[in-house]
């Protein structure tokens, strides 16, 4: 029994997935009360990657089952929002759009924004919505918010097709800047994951999160240069707006799509902030994870 003392990591770990039908020499599953902070256990999440796939598939399928228009909704939402914004802010108010047709300008900002806001909302509510799973079966809990965010990426890809169409319509020239696009998508996903994962765990304990979330998202939209260009913000406010990582990200999308110059400092700041947040969120999640089944 002295192995109890000699083995380190007071944590639950799947050390070996495959073994003989009978007992193996080393415990496949070790259960110990864990300490304050525990390891991320990314290996465990990797072992459950197929579950992420199936949960994502479920989310995507369910969203459009029993709807009249089905997948059309993925496209309609950003397109209609873009039309309203173009009429309101482009035509009526006359907000400048850095020389790009306002419709295109707005859509290029809305696309990543709608992905982000949806991913954060779905991610934030994902754990509470999966209480029946959490209390009945073990799997790395992080799989749930990850799947929720990834499912939104599918919508993003579909809505992106419309952007390509719009760019063709306005005969926008594609520049070498477009190569930054995958990086930007990755950055947006990671940022959404960081926020969504952290909120989802917090939501288990404080249900207020679910109530505050829509409001928070709404405010956040106006704090982000979606309907207006960053150049419109007065210089003394600009550094404040830059604190919002989405500012750098969304301006980055426009630069990548329309060939304008990248604001590398804004992008760099967003990337650093995103990484820090993601790491913090993951550890905080692991920490709160222990009580999920007891309080959800």
């Amino acid at each position: 029994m002295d192995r109890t003392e000699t083995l380190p990591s007071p944590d639950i770990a799947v050390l070996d997935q495959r073994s003989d039908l009978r007992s193996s020499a080393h415990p496949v599953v070790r259960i110990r009360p864990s300490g304050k902070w525990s390891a991320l256990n990314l290996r465990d999440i990797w072992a459950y990657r197929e579950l992420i796939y199936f949960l994502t598939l479920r989310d995507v399928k369910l969203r459009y089952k029993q709807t009249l228009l089905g997948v059309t909704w993925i496209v309609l939402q950003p397109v209609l929002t873009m039309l309203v914004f173009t009429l309101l802010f482009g035509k009526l108010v006359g907000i400048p759009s850095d020389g790009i047709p306002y419709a295109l300008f707005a859509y290029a900002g809305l696309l990543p924004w709608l992905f982000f806001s949806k991913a954060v909302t779905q991610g934030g509510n994902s754990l509470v919505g999966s209480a029946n799973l959490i209390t009945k079966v073990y799997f790395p809990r992080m799989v749930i918010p990850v799947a929720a965010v990834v499912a939104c990426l599918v919508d993003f890809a579909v809505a992106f097709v419309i952007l390509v169409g719009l760019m063709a319509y306005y005969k926008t020239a594609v520049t070498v800047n477009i190569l930054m696009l995958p990086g930007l998508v990755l950055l947006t996903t990671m940022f959404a994951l960081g926020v969504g994962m952290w909120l989802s765990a917090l939501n288990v304990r404080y249900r207020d999160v679910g109530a505050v979330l829509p409001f928070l998202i709404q405010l956040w939209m106006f704090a982000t240069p979606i309907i207006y260009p960053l150049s419109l913000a007065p210089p003394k406010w600009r550094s404040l707006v830059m604190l919002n990582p989405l500012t750098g990200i969304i301006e980055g999308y426009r630069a990548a799509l329309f060939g304008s110059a990248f604001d590398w400092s804004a992008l760099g700041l967003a990337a650093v902030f995103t990484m820090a947040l993601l790491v913090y969120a993951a550890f905080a999640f692991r920490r709160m994870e222990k009580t999920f089944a007891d309080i959800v």
Partner: protein
Amino acid sequence: MTPIISVEKVSKQYRIGTQKAAYGTLRDSFTNAVISPFRRLRSPLVTRHSSLVTSEMIWALKDVSFEVKPGEVIGVIGRNGAGKSTLLKILSRITEPTSGAIDMYGRVGSLLEVGTGFHPELTGRENIALNGAILGMKRAEIQRKFDEIVAFAEVEQFIDTPVKRYSTGMYMRLAFAVAAHLEPEILLVDEVLAVGDPPFQKKCLGKMNEVAREGRTVLFVSHNMSAISKLCQTCVFLRRGSVAAWGETRSVISEYMAAADSITGYREWPDPESAPGDEFIRARSVAVVDSAGAPVQSLRQDSAFRVAIEYQVLKRMRNANVGFDLRDDSGVTVFRTLDADSPEWSGRGREPGLYKIECTIPDHFLNEGRYYLTLVAGIPFIKFSLNAEDVLVLDIEPPTSDEGPAGRLGVRRPGIIAPALEWQVHCSQQAGETRL
């Protein structure tokens, strides 16, 4: 042989009390949440923080230790609240122990319910894939066993229909079929068998038997003593969070049966809040009374007695069954009887009020031995409101005289009951013929 599961001094402490204390709200702890959202979690079990002072701690499990050998089928028994479910949740890694250590030398599959993650809008095919992944099966493994699962569930025609259109029976069969094709070395099973119709239960038990025969290790938590004694060689008996007995099934079951909280012929719940029951109905008292109406704990085999129950109906019940189960000391249910058996109350609703019901058990019916009475109440086919296990213990003593019907002639008759039945005896022997 080295154990495949070793459980060492496992304890689990829960905070009980108001929901508010468990959830917390932002109003209470907004500052907390902003400054240090996880401070409360750092030591969730220590009442140091002011917001937690009011809540109480209970030990759901305390120093539980036992071992399971490879290939063994072990039962976990205990009354409601004894810690069975908590133990299973810890073994399944759904929740963490507060202290202690568990090592399991094999892949673990757990079945706390069937159909976890089933979604009504998804088709049978989609649900098999999703449920399989949730239970930890690989995609290739699911594909390989797909046809087998569908055949076992007998839902071939409906495999591409959303499961919300399935009958309850089909749904249950499909859910169980996926679970049954899980192939871990260690299988943890909760009372999945408690649901479903008798043929389904039989199928489940059959499958469990099969799993056990294949040499896999099974840990089975159940109330069903006959299933436990059929399936398990060894048993752990949990009582108030601790191991009260661990060993060969038969002896553990008899200890379980003997360990009723107190041996008494009368039980009363003066406080309706804590009395067994739900929002519809609460038990008030139960007593075994002799022919003179006095509460007794032991009776002679040749005397009749009555079981008197008082219950309070709080909310109108459209239909109700209230009664009791009598079990013998090996856990076998001798019978269940319900007040709705009286023609006058059969199928009738219950208006709110206090009810007193009495059932007469005839003399020369039960055998000598110890019996346990479980109170049951519910709305037929809708819900179980009350299931107060083993609230009374009843000892049937040898009859007053060895003569007379069912006389014991010095020994206890074999059998669970010893009824005095009517006999016709005919003799066709020729008059005058004698034999030696």
